[in-house]
């Protein structure tokens, strides 16, 4: 019985749900009053996705790049890695995503949004809107209270879901796909963790990946 398949998924989980919840409570306490600012930035992101211009889109890409860098440092490295050594290997991926957003989105003409209201546009906007305005409330729905809310640009899940929203609809398609990989991998990892911790919380990141991939496939090249 020495093989890897003798491990159950829960054997790989090295912390309890109580500790996971407290990560967000302490993170929010340490960063307050950054939350309203983050919400305002998130609202700005949604507005830009509604009424994009080349300049605004560049700004959004830069903002997202900064957020990926910040979350990698302030949340993953400082808080999450001490209780989950696997996170060490995730931090470079977050840095890669920040780099991709800078390189693909930060330069003139790097990213574009198709005009009109296609299905992919609607789904992408829906993901971004959910990430900014609704995802923090899942903490309340799960009985953790707002103190443990996961806020866009401060916590990884809503950041990844919002980025999936952007990646689902931008042109050219190859840039969209490139921007989708890391957030999708994170959401799958997060969904796996949450399913072991408290079941229902796993659905939002999992569905976000499915929706983003579907939207990307529907998006015009």
């Amino acid at each position: 019985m020495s093989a890897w398949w003798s491990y159950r998924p829960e054997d790989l989980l090295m912390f309890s749900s109580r500790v996971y919840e407290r990560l967000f409570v302490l993170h929010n306490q340490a960063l307050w009053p950054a939350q309203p600012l983050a919400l305002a930035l998130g609202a700005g992101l949604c507005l830009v996705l509604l009424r994009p211009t080349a300049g605004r889109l560049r700004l959004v890409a830069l903002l997202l790049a900064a957020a990926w860098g910040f979350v990698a440092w302030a949340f993953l490295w400082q808080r999450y890695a001490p209780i989950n050594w696997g996170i060490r290997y995730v931090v470079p991926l977050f840095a890669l995503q920040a780099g991709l957003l800078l390189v693909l989105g930060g330069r003139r003409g790097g990213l574009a949004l198709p005009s009109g209201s296609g299905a992919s546009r609607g789904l992408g906007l829906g993901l971004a809107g959910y990430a900014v305005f609704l995802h923090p409330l899942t903490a309340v729905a799960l009985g953790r209270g707002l103190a443990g809310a996961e806020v866009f640009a401060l916590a990884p899940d809503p950041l990844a879901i919002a980025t999936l929203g952007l990646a689902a609809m931008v042109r050219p398609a190859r840039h969209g796909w490139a921007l989708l990989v890391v957030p999708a991998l994170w959401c799958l990892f997060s969904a796996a963790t949450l399913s072991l911790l408290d079941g229902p919380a796993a659905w939002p990141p999992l569905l976000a990946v499915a929706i983003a991939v579907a939207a990307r496939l529907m998006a015009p090249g």
Partner: protein
Amino acid sequence: MASEPHALTRRQLLGGLLALAAGAALPPCSAVAEPGDILTRRVPATGEALPLVGLGSWITFNVGDDPLLLASCTAVMAAFFAGGGRMIDSSPMYGSSQATIGHGLAELDAAERVYAADKVWTSRPAEGPAQIEASRRDWGLPRFDLLQVHNLLAWEENLATLQAMRAAGEVRHVGITTSHGRRHAALERILREADLDFVQLTYNIVDREAERRLLPLARERGIGVIANRPFQQKRLIRRLEGKPLPDWAAELGAATWAQFILKFIVSHPAVSCAIPATTRVDHVRENLAAAREPLPDAALRRRMADYVHRL
């Protein structure tokens, strides 16, 4: 190969002498009463008496630097020491658990009280000493009582490191661990060949594979046995909860399923101690209380296992 088959004879002899010097009329594997009624069993290699119930730290003590949760782990440790407990087991694999233990030991001024059991966990044996040193700093102790090769990982080289440390007086005991019944054939070979003070493996009232070969072999070789996952990380307790304890559990002094299981484990004459992990003060007390008289004899142990099997 890191084994020293001949060195064992000398160590066993030394252990026997120490046991005699300690006035132990009982054989190394018999349970003896200590102040506070916590039963202890002697470490075969040195004759040192250790309480039959210790404390694990996988998941339960991995709380980061959260002051609230650190305080609650310290409370668990305080209750553990107050109840007569000594062995705490950890590993560099357990996230921040080692630092949590170090925090608790400092708060409770319990460096003298604890029997510190940690592990080396690396597939790059050259990194072993640095890892052990980092662990030692986390615990805040001058040295460990026991260092074990975690999950047989690069065991020959890592065990050689630990044996060299023991020879230099940098650790008192060395051992090797596995769990979930994994790699028992390899472990059997290691128990036969290597110079070990302890082996840690999964043993409880339903995971009894170790009874066939490993426990008798450990006893024969004078190697102490630490039983991990006594409650299958609580799955076993959840399975039994709601089912009735037998009437005769009261005669055993087992008021709960946790105590019933622990009494079964620690009454095996080869077992040095079980190391349940917990986040709760009431549970640590309940677990320690299982290490009191009476303990079941062989016939009663069979009856206990049959009863659980039928459930």
